[in-house]
């Protein structure tokens, strides 16, 4: 695919890999967190970590929008989906996330009309095609997907689509990062900044990371070469004792972000006082709900939502894994009570979570030499 293959060039990859090798001090261990689940996905897909020296470790951050949705929220979605006449729509990868009593996929099997959509506009279209049914869109994601939800809601309002509503579980990226950085036991050398989110919010919101917490941030694209280059840029900052926000993804991310998208979001959404994150607990001002002007499209007001908080299982140590304090195998339930087939915590839910990755690939990493 043109304009993409260039960023997957193996020879250039080797060049950057050698640059990285030249930047690391032997004997020192480096931990770099990629914030975004999209980066984690690329890292696995292309085997990027395989090109890194053994003392450069990638820590998978909290930026997988699916895995951060807490159990209680999944339960709420299922409860709404079970209302008579409701068509419940959501993104495909949300369907497998376990609530306290099964996933949306299980609720579908139990008779709820749950449909997978690829964009909120698809959900609105379903609403227009089924005027006698109530259509609910389960909105998830960071600032990446929030603008398209906002635009869809604007359109629904403009066109007067009465049978459409939105259960908003959008979250914002900065508060969880701050929560991580506030944690006294954090061990990280730098961050690969989220490229897609940054196309909307720009680079400015990440300035607090070097300013207040002395950690380098490099906003990166999603091709393997982007990620390798971002790692090299972070290590160079460490090597030169610099600490700033750099933008590796300039071809897409403007410093100021996308003002039009930010405006629409500001019109349609407002911050919740607090929102619960699976594995990280409550984080204030980290979630979005529909603003007063859009309250008539708020599914949480239209339907009765149990809103029962389901605590993360006590034994689950996802928070510490996310912070890089413990390794997946050091968690009390890893591999025994918590497995990819029956996940307990966020890190095991998505195949990109740190624990699922270790469960599936960790053994291979040990035997890399043999292969």
């Amino acid at each position, binding site marked *: *695919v043109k304009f993409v293959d260039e960023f997957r060039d193996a020879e250039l990859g080797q060049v950057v890999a050698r640059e990285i090798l030249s930047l690391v001090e032997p004997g020192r261990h480096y931990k770099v967190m990629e914030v975004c689940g999209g980066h984690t996905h690329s890292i696995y897909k292309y085997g990027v970590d395989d090109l890194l020296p053994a003392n450069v470790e990638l820590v998978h951050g909290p930026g997988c929008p699916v895995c951060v949705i807490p159990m209680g929220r999944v339960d709420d979605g299922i409860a709404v989906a079970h209302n008579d006449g409701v068509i419940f729509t959501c993104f495909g*990868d949300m369907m497998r996330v376990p609530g306290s009593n099964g996933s949306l*996929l299980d609720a579908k099997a139990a008779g709820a009309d749950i449909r997978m959509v690829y964009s909120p506009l698809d959900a609105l279209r379903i609403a227009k095609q089924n005027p006698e049914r109530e259509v609910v869109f389960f909105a998830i994601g960071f600032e990446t997907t929030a603008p398209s939800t906002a635009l869809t809601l604007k359109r629904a309002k403009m066109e007067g689509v009465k049978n459409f509503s939105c259960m908003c579980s959008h979250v914002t990226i900065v508060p969880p990062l701050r929560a991580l950085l506030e944690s006294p036991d954090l061990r990280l050398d730098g961050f690969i900044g989220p490229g897609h989110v940054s196309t909307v919010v720009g680079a400015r919101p990440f300035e607090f990371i070097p300013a207040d917490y002395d950690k380098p941030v490099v906003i990166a694209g999603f091709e393997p070469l982007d990620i390798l280059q971002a790692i090299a840029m972070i290590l160079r900052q460490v090597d030169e004792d610099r600490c700033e926000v750099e933008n590796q993804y300039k071809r897409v991310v403007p410093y100021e972000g996308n003002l039009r998208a930010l405006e629409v979001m500001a019109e349609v959404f407002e911050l919740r006082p607090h929102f619960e994150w699976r594995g990280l607990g409550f984080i204030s001002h980290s979630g979005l709900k529909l603003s007063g002007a859009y309250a008539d499209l708020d599914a949480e007001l239209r339907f009765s939502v149990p809103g029962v908080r389901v605590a993360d299982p006590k034994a689950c140590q996802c928070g510490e894994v996310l912070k890089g304090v413990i390794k997946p195998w050091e968690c009390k339930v890893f591999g025994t009570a918590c497995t990819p087939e029956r996940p307990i915590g966020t890190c095991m839910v998505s195949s990109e979570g740190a624990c699922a990755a270790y469960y599936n690939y960790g053994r291979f990493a040990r035997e890399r030499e043999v292969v």
Partner: protein
Amino acid sequence: VADQATVSDREQRILRIIETARGKRAKFRDEQINMAHGAGGKATQSLIEGLLAPAFESETLNEMADAGAVKVDGVELAMTTDSYVVKPLRFPGGSIGELAVNGTVNDLSVAGARPLALSLSLVLEEGLPADELRAEVEAIAQAARAAGVEIIAGDTKVVERGHADGMYVCTTGIGRRDPRASLSPSALRPGDRILLSGGIGEHGTAIMLARGEFELDASIESDTRSLWPAVDALLEAAGHDLRCMRDATRGGVASVLNELARASSVAMIVREAEIPVAPPVAGAAEILGIDPLYVANEGKLVAFVAPEAAAQALEALRSVSGCEQAAEIGEVRTEPPGMVLVQTSFGGKRVMDQLVGDPLPRIC
């Protein structure tokens, strides 16, 4: 490297627990059937290995081959059955009728059996236009002629409107084991080469686009075809050096490789750059966030051949119509047993894992 070499006792213990869990037969513990049980990944495996196989206690069934073997007075026969529930009924490159013939013919073929005859069972939905039915019956007849099989038994049922998506088709096939074949899913040996008969992901992508859920236009046609000519050529070229073949349908090439790696307790390494993917399929997969390795094919096989016969087998395969793009995509190794690794085009290595549920598009 130092901190990788020293594995603590605790980590060692955890790794052993994971290994034991992996080696165990999958258990079926779900409370109800959901769509993942039909997707060909881990959930399907739990259904087959955890519920069906234990109940029937058949050694032949336990081999988990595409077709089962029966010996009658010294004649070796192979038998297989399949149901077709595709939506829409017609799609670019084929239709449900054509699939129902080729799919069953292919399950026999990759088991090393020359397809002889099929039974045909039709479940029709009340209200199905007669012309649509006529078109499918014609497609079935034509595909059977092309594959050289006779339809020798059948059944029809009609169900109420709202069931069966127009029509479901079930076919059972019987074939005669080819004397040149000595195939077994547990026959793989380190060093064996992995051949793939052509570009992947075409059928699944064509169906996804034909459902019209995406506003994407691409000229991608299903690859549905009989694989017997390809199998015939491979058997002629490699004979007993042909260890095993699989029809890479539901779950794609990745699922087939994982199944066999487990069955033979071997590892496999696949070179991503060698895997043929047609540009429109690669483009659609890129946009939808789907990996073509997990997308269904309806006319592609994976063959394992002893190293000394690999070049010849590949040449023979490429001479078959529809297999011009055939390629050697990797080889069998010893370590780590049961796992499939990919050498990515970017130069890294990763695990090609089994599918957990449907290959759902990612959102970000």
